[in-house]
């Protein structure tokens, strides 16, 4: 068995690396750089029932070691995603995780039910953590009761396993994770962006038209790592972690914190080849450390030395 093969609900991953939702479109742009079948999976851009234009521009701004975005769930709508984007992705040997968003619970149910039937969609990622839209998104991701109810409803209609994407913009992310677990979630993905802002120092006005945006990139890695560390000790659900991953050592950190697989977002903008590069370097690193399987490192940040399959000082 390879050092990399991972079985998660709905997903057989050839490696633990996948692009994060919204940072990879529906894959087309990146397919000009490398074979998408190299990836463990692809988390595609959020899909809503109707076509959405999203927020006004400017939609992005740079911050220290990070960036803010307020794209606002722009997407071509459910029908188009099914008929064109997902269809096009069928040529690749890679499981798709469909990111589902909406303004109402009914929206989520409808998108989840329909999109989960696409042949290459192996799991859903329910986006209850978008900080950039007025209705829906994070509104479902900050109250445990709402998150539980939404999870239950989506679970009922989905034909594939359901992962809930958690927001870091809460007092207790563990509480949200447990609510999702109670609602019947099959897994968690975390974290979405942290709400932030940047001002134009001269005018004193926000740089982003939406005023606030979601912070991502290396700047948020310590927060994401801490959250995965906390949540993985409290729930049995597998975690796909993201937040500032840009090289193989970041991946190892998130696995050590308790994640089962890792997604790469903002780093794709800095280097479009980052995903295959990480996969290659990660494999070399595991060989060098003589680790038989990446999951031998899983959770070692909080396990006793005796419990971990691999320990290194």
């Amino acid at each position, binding site marked *: 068995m390879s050092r990399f093969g991972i079985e998660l609900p709905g997903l057989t991953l050839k490696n633990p690396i996948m692009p994060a939702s*919204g*940072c*990879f*479109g529906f894959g*087309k*742009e*990146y397919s*000009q*750089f490398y074979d998408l079948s190299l990836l463990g999976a692809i988390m595609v*851009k959020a899909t809503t029932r109707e*076509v*959405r*234009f*999203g927020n006004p*521009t*400017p*939609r*992005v*701004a*740079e911050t*220290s*070691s*990070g*960036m803010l*975005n307020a*794209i606002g769930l*722009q997407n071509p709508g459910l029908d188009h995603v099914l008929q064109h984007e997902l269809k096009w992705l069928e040529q690749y040997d890679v499981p798709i995780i469909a990111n589902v968003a909406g303004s109402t619970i009914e929206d989520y149910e409808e998108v989840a039910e329909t999109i989960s039937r696409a042949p290459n969609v192996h799991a859903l990622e329910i986006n209850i953590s978008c900080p950039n839209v007025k209705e829906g998104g994070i509104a479902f991701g900050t109250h445990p009761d709402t998150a539980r109810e939404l999870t239950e409803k989506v679970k009922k209609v989905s034909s594939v396993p359901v992962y809930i994407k958690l927001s870091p913009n809460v007092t207790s992310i563990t509480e949200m994770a447990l609510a999702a677990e109670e609602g019947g979630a099959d897994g968690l993905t975390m974290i979405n962006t942290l709400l932030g802002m940047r001002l134009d120092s001269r005018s004193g006005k926000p740089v982003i038209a939406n005023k606030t945006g979601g912070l991502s*990139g*290396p700047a948020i890695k310590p927060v994401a790592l801490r959250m995965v560390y906390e949540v993985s000790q409290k729930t049995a659900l597998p975690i796909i972690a993201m937040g500032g991953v*840009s090289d193989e050592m970041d991946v190892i950190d998130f696995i050590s914190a308790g994640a089962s697989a890792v997604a790469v977002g*903002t780093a*794709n*903008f*800095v*280097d*479009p*080849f980052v995903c295959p590069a990480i996969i290659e370097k990660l494999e070399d690193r595991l060989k060098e450390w003589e680790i038989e399987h990446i999951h031998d490192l899983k959770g070692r940040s909080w396990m006793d030395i005796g419990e971990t399959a691999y320990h290194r000082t």
Partner: protein
Amino acid sequence: MIGHQNMKIVSHESIAADIYELVLEGELTKRMTSPGQFVHIKVTTGNDPLLRRPISICSIDPDLNQFTMLYRVSGSGTRVLAERATGASVHVLGPLGNGFPVDYLKHGERALLVGGGIGVPPLYELSKRLTERGVHVTHILGFQTEKAVFYKKEFEALGDTYIATVDGSYGTKGFVTDVADQLSFQPDAYYTCGPAAMLKAVEAKFKDINGFISMEQRMGCGIGACLACVCHVAGDESNLLYKKVCSDGPVFKSGEVVL
């Protein structure tokens, strides 16, 4: 085809107030074929600044495998770039986007090129290509003030060149559109790049002829994946249609998108 390469800085000079000319060398140059395309450059390794910076291709020298960019120091990224010395390298992703159509005009036809400030650079390679085809080229270049003026001689070598400065310290006092008011001929097409207000003014002024307009927008990926850089399509009542400046543009036909 988009490529990527660590390219060597072969020359790096200040040519006007806060304006630098940067010449990079490498095989990637061979892919640069269309004036008006841009590159996305990582000014230094590491996380700060994190994102790439979009800069237009100003001129291409395929024989030497070199291309030139002109940029203005404005924020953190360009400030770091300005400190990079000859011999160092920067990572370049490109060429990106769609450039100005050179073959739109035939031998003997007249092109008007209108540039404002740091929107002037992509017009230089364009002007070279147009004049090679035997198109007559007239340039109107606008700057804030005399100290900000650059590439006047280079443009003059290719065709009539008029300069406007807002403070009147050089050339005509006022905007590029003030110079355009005095034109003695009707161009067959115009090509423009510069501040949004200028693009709007130019499009309005030449509404009877076809033009090509290079847009700017804040970018994330630069390749069409993140939807940071969208603009609305002109005449679309639904307000749902969009174009991506990075991959559908940066050059659009006049009347195609909302400026």
